[in-house]
Every structure is written in C-alpha cells, then in structure tokens.
C-alpha cells in the first residue's frame, strides 16, 4: 500500500518534471529550427550566419582549441563571483555591526552599481595587465555591489515580529544576526546573488572582448576576424550554456535552502 503510493508519487513527479523540461525546451528548439530553415532556404553563406548544425559541429570539432579559453572564462566567473558574494555579504554584515562603515561605503557602492563597467576595463588593464587579474577585478566590482545592496535591504526589511522575539530575550547584536536576521534575509540575499551571476558573466566576457587573447570573449573577436563564424558562434553557445547552467544551479540551491520559508 505504502509502496504503491510512493511509486505513484514518483511517477507523478517524473511526469511533471518531463512536462516542465519539454515546455522549457520548446521555444529554443523552435527558434533553432527556424534559424536552420531560414539560412538554408535563403542560402545565407556560412561566414555571415552559420546554421545550427555547423555551430554544434564546431563546438565538438574545435573543442580542443576552445577548451583553454573556456576554462579561463568559466574559472574567472566562478572565482570572481565567489569573491563578490563573500565581499558583498561580509560588507553588509560589517555595516550592520557598525553604521559608520555604511555611511562611509554606501555612496561608493551606489556609484559602482550605476557605473558602466566598460569604461573602467581599459584602465584596469593598463594597471593590471591583460591577464586574469584585471578581469577578476572587473568581475568583482561589477557583481559585488548588487549582492551588497540586496543583502542590506533584506537586513533592513527583516520581519519585525521575528526580530522582536530576539529583543524579548535581549539577544546580542551578534545573536540577532546569526539566529534571525541572516536566515530571514536569505531570499533577499539570493535575489542579489542571482543578479550578480548574470553581471559576473557579462563583466568577464566584456573584459575579454576589450583586451587580451584569453577567454571565450577574445576568441569570438579573433574567430570573427578570420571569418570563422561557426567557431565564433560555438563560443557564444558555450557562454550561453554556462550562463544558463550557472543561474539554474543558483536557483536550485536557493530553492533547497528556502524551501521551508
């Protein structure tokens, strides 16, 4: 009895999951199909717009050539993003413990949020060279402010009654943060973290396009210069795939962590 109920639930779950994936995949598949049909129909030359099969072929055939750049891009984004998350959240906690820190720092963080990063990248490269250092800095300064701002507004918007429980026990500032404010703010923090994931990837690729020879962004520029469009698009696809998986993974972690909220 118990067993069949479990089985039924599993079957139901699988069916829902399948439906979900099918629905999500539908539009991309249709788009790729339309793309393919129109380039073949109108006989568009490959150096203008390659067909999806040509791109997918390049993704496999040129994988060895692309791999080091893929590692550079993915690695920089992951490292930079992790640093940004640590800095953004740590800074928010520091501001909670000492308001003066907030008064000193917040104007700059607001400025960094509205500043178009692209204007800074050439300068960063002038100072730090064309290697990973400049790009990491770009990724961090582009993505940590949004994490910080979202964490701060989540702290400020903490459920007042939950906080009152802490106050009814005269909890210390540290206890309030650990037991109430931080966990209560988790959904708000994740809003910032997911936005930062998008910004981190954008910052990394933008920096690669601006200068240097490493990374998928730099490859796109070089491949286009040699009219190797399937390879250039292969790099675009690798970037898109990473962005998608990265974002979905964060969403997944968020759902796991906040499932009882």
């Amino acid at each position, binding site marked *: 009895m118990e067993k069949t109920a479990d089985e039924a639930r599993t079957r139901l779950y699988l069916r829902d999951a399948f439906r979900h994936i099918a629905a999500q995949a539908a539009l991309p598949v249709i788009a790729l199909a339309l793309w393919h049909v129109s380039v073949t129909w109108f006989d568009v030359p490959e150096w203008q717009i390659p067909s999806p099969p040509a791109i997918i072929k390049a993704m496999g055939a040129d994988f060895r050539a692309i791999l080091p750049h893929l590692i550079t891009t993915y690695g920089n984004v992951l490292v930079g993003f992790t640093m940004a998350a640590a800095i953004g959240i740590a800074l928010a906690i520091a501001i909670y413990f000492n308001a003066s820190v907030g008064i000193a720092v917040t104007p700059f963080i607001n400025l960094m949020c509205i500043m178009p990063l692209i204007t800074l990248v050439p300068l960063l490269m002038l100072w730090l060279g064309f290697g990973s250092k400049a790009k990491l800095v770009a990724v961090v300064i582009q993505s940590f402010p949004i994490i910080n701002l979202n964490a701060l507004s989540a702290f400020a918007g903490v459920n007042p*009654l*939950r906080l*009152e*429980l*802490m*106050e*009814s*026990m*005269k*909890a210390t500032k540290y*206890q309030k943060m650990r*037991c*109430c404010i931080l*966990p*209560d703010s*988790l959904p708000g923090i994740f809003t910032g973290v997911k936005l930062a994931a998008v910004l981190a990837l954008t910052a990394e690729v933008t920096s690669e396009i601006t200068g240097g020879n490493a990374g998928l962004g730099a490859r796109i520029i070089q491949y286009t210069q040699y009219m190797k469009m399937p390879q250039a698009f292969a790099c675009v696809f690798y970037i898109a795939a990473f962005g998608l998986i990265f974002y979905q993974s964060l969403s997944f972690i968020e759902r796991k962590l*906040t499932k*009882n*909220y």
Partner: protein
Amino acid sequence: MMELINVSKRFIARREDLLALSGINMRVGDGEFVCVVGPSGCGKSTIIRIINDIIKPSSGRVVVDGFTYEKNAPIPHKLIRRMGFIFQIPNLYPWLTVRENIRLPLDIFGLRGQKWMNHADFLIEKAGLSSCADQYPGSLSQGMSQRAGVVRAMVHKPDILLMDEPFGALDERTRERMDFELLDIWRENGMSVVFITHNIGEAVLLAQRIYIMATAPGRIIDTLRVDLKKRDMSSFEDARFEEYSSRINNAIGNILLEKAV
C-alpha cells in the same frame, strides 16, 4: 513581585502624538495569574512589551523583586532570563524545526549542556509535540504551532510568563483546551502570569485578578479579584462566573457610554 509604577507611554510618529498609556499602576504577586482585558488599541500589548523591556516607557518604572528599570535604565540581564514572552501568533522561525525553535532561548541565554536539551525534550513530550518536533513549522496546525510557541517561552524555566493574546487567533474549542492546559502548567510550576486578552470569559476563567482597561488614553479603569471555587469546565456554570463577566462588561460599557454622551 512585579510592580508597574505610574507608567506612561507616548508614541510620536509622523508628528502625531499619541498617549498610548497614562499612569498605569499594576501589581503582580509571586505566582499570581493576572489578566488584562480591554478594547483594541487600549495599550495592552504596550504594557506587556514595557514589562519585557522591548519598548521603554516614557515615564514611570517597573520594579521586579527590588530591581528597577525605566526609560534610561535597561532591565538587568538576570531578570530577562526569568521572563518568557508568548506572542499572539506562534512566531516560530520557519527555517528551524520545531525542536530547534524550542531550543532557541537556550542558545540565546547560553544555557548549554545535556541537562537543558533533555529539559527541552521533556517539555516537547509533555506538550504532545514529539511527533512533529523534527518537522518544520509550516506543516503544523495553528494550535500545534502556538503550543510550540508556549513551550519555547518556557524552555529556560522562567518564573514570569508574559502572554499577549496567545490564543486569540485560535478557534473557540482549541482556545478553551489551551486555557485549561495553561492552568495545569501554572498550577504545577507556580509562575507569575500576565495574560492579555480581549475575551472577557477567558479572563474570568484564568485570572485571580483582572485589570480592566479603556482607550484614549490607555488606562486602567478597574481592578477585579476573581474567586471561583474551581477552574475547569464546571466554572462556566458557576453563578459567579456570570457575575464577574457582567461586571467587566459594565465597566467597559460605561466608559463607552460616557464617551457617547
């Protein structure tokens, strides 16, 4: 013994000046069960929050066993540990299991060791929460959640319970059952209780002494000693039950009448 001496509270918000409490004098003897009744907005919650030092009085002071706290003198830490606050809603943290929620005050008050863990488990068992102790609060009924809220407020063995309309959100029958269980706990442990309610019958059933309040400004208009032979289901048939209820009704009604005239 706990005393409120000439306590007043003024809320100033957006240039509006509200005298929420005016000249409150209250006394709660050791092990006494005191109820506070009054219409919505008369400042009942404000009184209990002042006792717990969650908010400060504008003037007047609170004295508990010789320790005084007031506007510029916070409550001694020793006293805070002797109080347990129960909210109108269960106010459990959704990210903690029921058991973790109940253990929270032990963490905040630094009561470590197996002895306290066992005490928490003992109370969980006694409250009939064992079967759901390791679930998250989201899956509990209102009544069970509030039970957990009560247990949480008692886990550090306070001898003063502050209850702000704790069963007001429950249905009639659950509320009645909780009232009787509370009486059992009180008889067993002999703590002092300040119990806020706007339900006159509940006040008469529970209290040894009732403070009756009126609005604008929030003040105490009458005090009533309740002397029922027994406090159980038969109390409702007790002739004096009706008598007490109508006396409270009249006290509140007279004030309303005075206003209307």
